[in-house]
């Protein structure tokens, strides 16, 4: 079930909300957990709920035992149980396929096709959102182990934290201290919905997704379809189009998730802060997928030593963090390349920070946008030859220039519009939704009506696959 589907908007959401508004205490938490599981069961296969329930039960239990245990060795062993369980599930569902394909390719290269039969067993379907809820429960367990957070004693509340449907499938990656206290509050006092801020933000997200991301995707996908015969102009147009498509798709989803959270009286964390206005690669990562960046910083980069080590070691830490962050996005070596690209950008920016700062701000902003956008080639391409082909076309070594079509004009117009919005318009969370002037309200309503009518033909969210 997608947020941008009539089943969700007309059946699931009103029913869930109407019942939730009448409940308090444990029944409310049970209702939220139950409806979230139902939502998840409709997100793909019904069995997706099995690994999520395993994670929920194991981590609830492990955290309680860690808190009661004094012996450091036993605490470490318990942490290892949780890490092995969580990362094991993630590795099996997400990376076993990559391993299988890599072994397959290696086997073929070495003339050992017999390996294929073994590796097929590991090629499994990825449960939607597994990367998100695994990272959420990991941070919870690590914080309990560090003594930085108490273990949650209420199982239903913990289950609600893991499965709360607005953030379950594609984030924002919500940490325990951001959600569990809010669940406790609404259980105690009942839900106090922020109707206006919630509904309007949801509509802004819906419009970003259906009116911008999907339209861009419709025009970009044919350009990038195999055999990808791109001339230079189309290569750049496809790149700009994809950079905006993924931004509006993911930030649109986040707006919808935050808007839905507000309807339940819960404020989910911000995930985007106008990333294409960033003035450096470091600034970009403070603005793009902010909850993931913060997670990687707190649980990976700092654990590796962070900034408290030699410059050379710091650079290695940064590269490792970004490569693993890239692989978190998908089980393909192109995602590792995407992470490497960003790692290199961050390292180079750190090494030349002073010189960078001397550039005019407009240059910093435009250069950052260009560098970040070029990185999307690795993200979008499914294979390295495809990425190389695209880069070659960008550099002027592509196919001969084809005739200019109406689709190309439409894409150019959409890219220009998208750029104007991404670079000049305020962030969704900066919009004064609580006191939107009547004319803007009417404009948003018209855009929402258009999005609702077009919605039947919208695609899935790009971040569902991660």
């Amino acid at each position, binding site marked *: 079930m997608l947020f941008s589907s*009539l089943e969700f908007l007309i059946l699931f959401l009103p029913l869930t909300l109407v019942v939730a508004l009448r409940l308090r205490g444990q029944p409310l938490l049970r209702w939220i957990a139950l409806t979230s599981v139902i939502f998840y069961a409709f997100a*793909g*296969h019904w069995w997706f709920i099995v690994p999520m329930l395993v994670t929920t039960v194991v981590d609830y239990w492990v955290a309680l035992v860690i808190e009661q245990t004094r012996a450091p060795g036993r605490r470490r062993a318990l942490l290892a149980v949780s890490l092995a369980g969580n990362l094991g599930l993630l590795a099996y569902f997400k990376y076993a396929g990559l391993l299988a394909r890599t072994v397959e390719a290696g086997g073929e290269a070495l003339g050992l096709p017999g390996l294929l039969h073994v590796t097929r067993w590991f090629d499994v*379907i990825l449960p939607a959102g597994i990367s998100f809820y695994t990272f959420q429960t990991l941070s919870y367990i690590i914080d309990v182990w560090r003594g930085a957070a108490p273990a949650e004693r209420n199982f239903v509340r913990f289950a609600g934290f893991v499965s709360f449907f607005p953030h379950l499938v594609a984030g924002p990656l919500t940490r325990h201290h951001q959600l569990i206290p809010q669940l406790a509050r609404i259980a105690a006092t009942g839900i106090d919905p922020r*109707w*206006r801020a919630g*509904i*309007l933000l949801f509509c802004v997200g819906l419009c970003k997704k259906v009116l911008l991301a999907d339209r861009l995707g*419709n025009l970009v*996908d*044919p*350009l*990038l*379809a*195999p*055999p990808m015969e791109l001339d230079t102009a189309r290569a750049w147009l496809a790149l700009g189009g994809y950079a905006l498509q993924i931004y509006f798709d993911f930030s649109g989803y986040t707006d919808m998730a935050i808007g839905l959270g507000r309807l339940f009286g819960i404020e989910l964390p911000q995930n985007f802060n106008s990333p294409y206005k960033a003035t450096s690669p470091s600034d970009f990562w403070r603005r793009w997928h902010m909850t993931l960046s913060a997670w990687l910083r707190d649980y990976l980069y700092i654990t590796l030593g962070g900034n408290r080590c030699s410059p050379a070691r710091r650079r290695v830490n940064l590269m490792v963090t970004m490569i693993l962050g890239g692989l978190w996005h998908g089980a393909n070596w192109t995602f590792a390349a995407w992470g490497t690209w960003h790692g290199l950008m961050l390292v180079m920016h750190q090494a030349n920070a002073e010189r960078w700062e001397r550039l005019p701000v407009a240059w910093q902003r435009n250069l950052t946008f260009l560098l970040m956008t070029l990185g999307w080639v690795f993200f979008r391409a*499914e294979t390295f030859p495809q990425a190389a082909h695209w880069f070659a076309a960008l550099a002027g070594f592509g196919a001969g220039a084809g005739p200019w*079509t109406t*689709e190309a004009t439409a894409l150019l117009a959409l890219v220009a519009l998208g750029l104007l919005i991404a670079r000049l318009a305020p962030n969704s969370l900066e919009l004064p939704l609580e006191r*939107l002037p*009547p004319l803007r*309200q*009417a404009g*948003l*309503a*018209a855009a*929402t*009506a258009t999005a*609702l*009518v*077009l*919605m*039947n*033909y919208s695609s*899935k969210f790009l971040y569902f696959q991660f």
Partner: protein
Amino acid sequence: MRVFSLTLGTLLAVVVAVNALGTWAAARDEARLQAVPTALRPGEVALGYRNVDERRFQRGRLVTIPRPRVVTFGSSRVMQMTGALVGVGPAAFYNLGMSGATVEDYVGLWEILRRQDKIPERAIFSLDPWIFNAEVDQVRWRTLTREIDTFLARRGWRTVDAALGGWSRAKELVSYEVLRDSVRRLRRLFRSRPAARTGSPETLIVPESAVGDRQALRADGSLIYDGAFQRRSPREVQEDAVHWAATDGPGLARFRWNPERLRLLETLWKDMRARGVRITAFLPPYHPATWRVIDGDARQREALDQVRRALAELASRLDVSFADFADPASVPCAADEFFDGQHARPSCLRKLLDRLPATAR
């Protein structure tokens, strides 16, 4: 918030009202068209065969036609097939192709043929790979729920949930595609002369020689596309084919195997074979540009391979002739032998029929 709610409510109410009116207009058009099946004779065509409930039309038609010797099942991709192409006389052939047809449709139509005691000697199935994709939500077959239920109930299977059909219809009230069609239909209704609005079914039936540029359905169930569609330039067709493939028109990019459909097809084929029907099945060819996209995308190729393997295995078990023509080079069909990314022209279909296993012909 009041301005927002009022504007949104008003705009959606307008869309729903236009679509409801469009649906009413379509029902009027259709009521006229549904009277056609009994009146249509060989050599004549039915006009206005566009955006109509093809299932209802076929249900009416199957009651009227004599028992055919050869029938074809499939989606719009097989609707160009005529008796002449198959090599039998016009009265001996009937094309059961319908837009967006799935296995449920084949079952429903077969049930009608069986009930009418019009069991053919031979059935040709053109199987679109997407019908085995659980992610593709195609529900047009629900018009034939009654017939499908009868078939399923006879085998003690669970019958179709009618409520889901109602929900799919309700969703169409806020659908862009339906809105576009409704506006077109209402404009035509208001512009047409009063006499034309209340015209009899006979006005929709003309000799095939008089069809001109209009889209029409022949008495043998085969389709004639409108002139503008037939005359599109190779470049237009090529661009359309690439766009269709890249936006997952073939329904293979996000593929989730639907085992129920294969089980239903197996049950259907077993029933047909038990009644002595010879069955030929094939995967129809794509436009070469569409094929390049599918072939170049590992996910789509894998999905197609899965369909291919499953059908080949089923066919060999049930003594059904099966051929895979998804790659147009296997027929071979050139780019100019397609109307778009998936619909082959008669010349391509003729070659395809010639290449079917000899035992099936």
